[in-house]
């Protein structure tokens, strides 16, 4: 803007603020810090923060702020130009045990043992694609950071490390090409999921039966793991305090939620067909959100001859944040029952859920995410938030802004009629075949 400015950041985000300012070209930005947190403090407590010291420098905060706007710039602060950045040598040489430790110590892994990416193993991985090793695959960042880029060979290195077989590689390339990192900077500790559709599910022996979401098949386990490892190494994600701020973290980040759809047991078209692909195409679809919860916690889910899964789902979704969508992961028995109830299309189910999962404007406005994310969008005039913020407190509005916030996928072994549900938003579907 060309206007002198001073950013104020709470102390908990010191490294994030300083590192990100440097990476964005302002290594000497005059950032001032307050104690953490400021949220939820009384006016008196906040006033004490303003009157007190910057907890990083120890100097009076307001003097720092005023100085930040008025003290003339140093030569370093006036610098322009470009600085290239190196990520080190192309190769490392050591014994297998030492290399295992080396990768772990440098944050290249998920802190589980990896397959050491020798040239031979990476070459074998590359043979599973027609794409050239130096072809650019995509760019990735784990939040509002400068995006890193990578080629097919670099993706292959990460696929090897995660334990993937070469035949899985087109899926890894498809995921990498999306630019979606499975580690995200947010303090909310995001979770990620993928749906695999198409004949490749059987060809690679994905598990979509009993224990579909569990550790019972190599492709389910390692492809999800590869997404996280490549998000660290190719997208520079997952560095605590720098590119990762999740307060609690998320156990699902180890290998994400990998769902191979049980297409033949579904009463509806498979997920990728909904997204415009042909049934015979192989597709990976990516989701982002907060996690997955069991459907058994919903009211009315005890043994019952006529379990109303629509009401159960609505009940469950009313506890979700509407900032993200709702992904139903339905065992085939649940899907069959929903169809018996009259939901012969997914669209009918989504329309019912959107209409019947509601909240009052007062409850909505009291939610943290509404103030944090939706109110600024309302100010910009984005709908439906702009209209919601004009309604009276007792008005009833949908819990989720759009019908398209709902999705369903069928997986599981039909040992019981239990659903799970993710507070997860659909992001993108990518052709796997393009990367074969």
């Amino acid at each position, binding site marked *: 803007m060309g206007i002198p400015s001073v950013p104020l950041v709470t102390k908990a985000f010191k490294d994030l603020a300083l590192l990100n300012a440097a990476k964005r070209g302002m290594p000497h930005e005059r950032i001032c810090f307050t104690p953490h947190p400021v949220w939820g*403090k009384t006016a008196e407590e906040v006033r004490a923060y303003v009157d007190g010291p910057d907890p990083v420098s120890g100097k009076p905060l307001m003097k720092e702020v005023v100085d930040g706007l008025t003290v003339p710039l140093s030569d370093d602060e006036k610098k322009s130009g470009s600085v290239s*950045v190196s*990520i*080190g040598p192309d190769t490392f040489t*050591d014994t297998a045990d*030492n290399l295992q430790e080396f990768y772990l110590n440098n944050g290249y892994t998920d802190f589980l043992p990896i397959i050491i990416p*020798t*040239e031979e193993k990476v070459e074998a991985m590359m043979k599973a694609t027609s794409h050239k090793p130096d072809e650019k695959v995509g760019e990735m960042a784990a939040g509002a950071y400068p995006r890193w880029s990578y080629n097919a060979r670099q993706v292959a290195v990460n696929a090897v490390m995660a334990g993937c077989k070469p035949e899985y590689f087109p899926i890894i390339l498809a995921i990498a090409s999306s630019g979606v990192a499975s580690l995200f900077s947010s303090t909310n500790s995001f979770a990620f999921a993928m749906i695999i559709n198409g004949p490749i599910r059987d060809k690679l022996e994905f598990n979509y039966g009993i224990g579909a979401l569990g550790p019972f098949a190599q492709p389910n386990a390692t492809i999800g793991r590869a997404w996280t490892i490549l998000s660290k190494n190719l997208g520079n994600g997952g560095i605590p305090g720098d590119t990762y701020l999740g307060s609690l973290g998320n156990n699902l980040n180890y290998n994400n939620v990998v769902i191979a759809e049980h297409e033949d047991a579904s009463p509806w078209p498979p997920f990728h067909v909904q997204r415009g692909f042909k049934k015979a195409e192989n597709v990976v679809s990516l989701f982002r959100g907060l996690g997955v919860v069991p459907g058994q916690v919903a009211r009315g889910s005890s043994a019952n001859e006529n379990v109303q899964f629509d009401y159960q789902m609505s009940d469950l979704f009313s506890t979700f944040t509407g900032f993200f969508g709702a992904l139903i992961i339905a065992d085939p028995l649940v899907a069959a029952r929903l169809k018996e109830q009259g939901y012969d299309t997914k669209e009918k189910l989504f329309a019912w859920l959107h209409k019947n999962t509601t909240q009052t404007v007062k409850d909505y406005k009291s939610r943290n995410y509404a103030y944090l994310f939706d109110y600024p969008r309302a100010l910009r005039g984005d709908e439906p938030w702009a209209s919601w913020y004009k309604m009276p407190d007792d008005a009833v509005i949908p819990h989720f802004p759009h019908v398209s916030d709902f999705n369903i996928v069928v997986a599981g072994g039909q040992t019981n009629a239990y659903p799970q549900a993710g507070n997860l938003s659909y992001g993108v579907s990518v052709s796997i075949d393009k990367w074969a």
Partner: protein
Amino acid sequence: MSPVALAGVPALAAKDKKPDQKKPTAASGGPKLEVLNPRGLPPPITLIPMAKRLDTLDGKTVYLVSDGFPGADAFLNQMSIWFKKNMPSVTTVYRLKAGGFADDDPKLNTEIKEKGQAVIMAIGH
């Protein structure tokens, strides 16, 4: 070299280590293997000269901008009170930035350029 060190923040360079800075703690036998670096390519850093500072805040209008994170509004309100008490010639204007927290707000930027001389932006939590 670390991007941070290159960009001139040596105190933080340790947070962004070169891959050869941490050596294995225990030696082990066996043949040596050559393995590949798994990292992607970071973009070059384009240094941005900071905006010229003001000679004084006296008589100036300072925009207090919240990015929407909880608590930023209350904090900036107390800053406004501080200015009234300690630097009464300064006019403060509070604004909540529209859009996502990382999005630009072009309308607000235009307003600040027209009516303000300085910005304090609070990134709460």
